[in-house]
């Protein structure tokens, strides 16, 4: 068998990391950080947790290059979805066109 079997030790570690991440995000939510920092902290923790799930629970770290390309393409198209939509909404007030 040529397939990589992820050791139990790694699964347990990731599980604990995810639980700690959940506790951290709840604790951080009750702190009043300046400006948009609350959202940035919450999203950073969520992205970190998701990355651990994708790399280890979903075995992407040990998968073929083709799987990496597919996963990256999802992020790429998400970026297009957000970038093009907000390039519209965020710039609507830049020009006054006399309505």
């Amino acid at each position, binding site marked *: *068998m*040529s*397939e990589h*079997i*992820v050791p*139990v030790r790694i*699964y*347990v570690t*990731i*599980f604990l990391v*995810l*639980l700690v991440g*959940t506790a951290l*995000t*709840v604790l951080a*939510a*009750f*702190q*009043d*950080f300046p400006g948009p920092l*609350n*959202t940035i902290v*919450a*999203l950073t*923790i*969520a992205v970190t*947790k*998701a990355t651990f*799930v*994708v790399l*280890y*629970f*979903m*075995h992407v770290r040990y*998968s*073929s290059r*083709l*799987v990496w390309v*597919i*996963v990256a*393409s*999802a992020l790429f*198209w*998400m970026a297009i*979805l*957000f970038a093009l*939509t*907000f390039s519209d*909404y965020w710039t609507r007030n830049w020009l006054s066109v006399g309505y």
Partner: protein
Amino acid sequence: MDATTEEIHGHRALQHHFENMEQQREAGTLGMWVFLVTEIMFFGGMFLAYTLYRSTYPAAFASASNHLDITLGALNTGVLIFSSFTMAMAVYFTQVGKQRSQVICLVITLLLGLTFLGVKAKEYHDKYEDRLIPGYLIPGRSYKPEVAQEGDHDPHKLHLLGNATVRQVELFYWIYFAMTGMHALHMIIGAGLLTFLLIFSLKGRFDPEYHSPVEVIGLYWHFVDIVWIFLFPLLYLLGRHLEHG
């Protein structure tokens, strides 16, 4: 006769259009990932709507979010993370050929999934009682939350922050029910898939050479977990720091 049928024809689960089990497994995993990309785009549209309306009505989103039950939300996050762990362990035990442990892990994963749905149903019922389900389709309970006045701490009333209005809060609840509802539907489908896995697992259908169904349904289950990892902070935690300020 020295060679067994398996050595001549390959594994009994090998389909004729694949060279060997490894190629078949990799094709299956790749196909599942392509499907998950479409799922990411599907949920992506709702995350986009969320981002857009949250940036338009920040005070209303914070007020509405603070009405959600943070304890139940955090509990459900823990339940889902635990279920992802047991799902990963089910894949592991299949890969090393321990059928009994594999069955136990699948049963725990299924029970945790059902626990999540039970807690979610309780949360939905609370919102029904507080008249927070948007629209007019709920008989006798159409959207009409009671608004708390200054100094009133009744948790069943809506505590509006800043210039938030009841109508803007309704927009948050549209998005809340759409996103958690679609997520719950994925959980229900996932529970069905796990039941299917469990039946075939009990029949001893999977072994270290053939475990693609466990692996692929595992990928789906982890994906649904990831969606919740984002939904929890975005829906439940966004306005907590303003609550006692």
